[in-house]
């Protein structure tokens, strides 16, 4: 016990200093087209970072590297200080595509990661039911993805990501395919969830409002090949401006009406 104490303390200190995700002079070329060019990036534990850049600039490639689904041609990507050589199972990856298995119902889609980990069926069903409650899908356990709306499918895929309790979320324009109303609902819920669970988030978006409303830090990328041009810290005042624009206007009046109407969710 006593011998263990200093090591634990040391590990704690390194954990605090160690950025969750690091990119060191990362370059990537796809089909002889340079996509990323010497990217230097650090994402601290518990922070919410948004990447904003013109479409087709390589944001998705960057996230794929962070997910360990691809490898950089040059440089190195570290997760908790360890190079990522295979899919990053500590991270949840949410894309514009829901990526749900069409032949499975909501419950077994959500329980999938636990099934892969060979968790006992009763246990994983219980865990799935708990998370279904959290994302507001009670009553839809046995629906197939095709029977759900876009917003609900997004919830299912979020629930499937959260069920294995990842420390990090990688979001690739996750709400891009949703209507404005559902998108805002989902943004708020996601923000609450990430705070509650203390998640580290790397969000890719081209919606500036979304970036400001959600992130603590925004990284601006150039057109392809993507380089980082500017890192902006988002203040509470900036967030308030975005919120208030929504609150003071006719926009918010209609928004509230819609929010009331959609108690059943997107």
């Amino acid at each position: 016990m006593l011998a263990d104490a200093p090591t634990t303390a040391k590990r704690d200190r390194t954990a605090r200093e160690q950025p969750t995700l690091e990119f060191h002079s990362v370059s990537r070329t796809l089909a002889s087209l340079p996509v990323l060019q010497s990217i230097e990036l650090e994402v601290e534990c518990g922070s919410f970072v948004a990447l904003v850049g013109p479409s087709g600039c390589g944001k998705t490639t960057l996230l794929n590297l962070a997910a360990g689904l691809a490898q950089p041609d040059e440089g190195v990507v570290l997760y908790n200080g360890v190079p990522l050589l295979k899919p990053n199972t500590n991270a949840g990856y949410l894309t514009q595509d829901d990526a749900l298995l069409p032949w499975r119902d909501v419950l077994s889609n959500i329980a999938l990661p636990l099934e892969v980990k060979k968790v006992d069926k009763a246990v994983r069903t219980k865990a799935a039911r708990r998370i279904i409650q959290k994302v507001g899908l009670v009553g839809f356990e046995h629906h197939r993805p095709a029977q759900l709306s876009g917003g609900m499918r997004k919830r299912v895929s979020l629930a499937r990501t959260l069920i294995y309790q990842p420390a990090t979320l990688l979001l690739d324009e996750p709400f891009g395919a949703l209507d404005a109303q559902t998108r805002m609902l989902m943004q708020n819920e996601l923000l609450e969830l990430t705070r509650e669970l203390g998640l580290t988030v790397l969000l890719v978006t081209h919606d500036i409002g979304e970036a400001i409303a959600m992130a603590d830090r925004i990284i601006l990328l150039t057109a392809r090949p993507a380089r980082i041009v500017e890192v902006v810290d988002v203040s509470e005042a900036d967030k308030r401006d975005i919120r208030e624009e929504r609150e003071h206007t006719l926009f918010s009046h209609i928004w509230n009406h819609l929010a009331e109407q959609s108690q059943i969710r997107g």
Partner: protein
Amino acid sequence: MGRRNEITRWRRKLAVRLTQFVIVAVLLLAWEFSPAWLLDDFLWSRPSAIYSQTLAWLARGILVGNAAITLECVLQGLLFGGLAGILLGLFAGLRPAAAELINRPIEALFAVPKIALIPLFILWFGIGVYQHVIFTSVVVFFFFFFSVYNGVRSVPVALRNALSMTGASSAQAVHILYLPASLGWMIIALRLAMPYAFVAAVSTEVIASTSGLGNLVKNSASMMNSAGMFSAMFTLLFVSMISSGLVNVLARKNRWNLEQLEE
């Protein structure tokens, strides 16, 4: 509104069936009562003679016995050929290097008229049941190989990535994602392969065999028993129609599978 549509649909269906029945009845009557100078009895037989031959053979268990032998050959061919096609299709679909290596040769073999292989198969495997089953397996193999290969290749990248992120092993990926995703394709393969399996089984039986419906057709023909030949052929028609019908029912039940993957 919906109900009226339903009724119109049923009426149309009934009209189609009735017309088909009338056409068949007219043809059968014309066949039965045609003058000898038009349809020679000896070569063409007559529906009444075919009917009594069928009854006689049914009573002696000849038709059912031979049909069972042919059907067994078809089912075993579908089983072994299907299994080989599915496994190799999965392998090629999952390993691009393997696909590059084996796709061309398989496409080339697919283009070979398989019937030309029967003499070779007889040399290799004799004229017994092995040769029939192996030949049928070879014929249906291609349908399963190509459809499972395409099924695996058409799995969206997003689904593959989502599964990778959970840390699934290759075996788990096959079980959870690739096999279910290819199920619709396999059923299409089964639909296409079923009639070809009958063609294959009967072809080998006609060329060299001691039993089966193909054997019955050939023996009847060589004994100038045209009624027996037609009786065996109609039995074949009946058995293959029932089999294809069953596969179609299966396919309809699984239609959602393919449609939703494409979405």
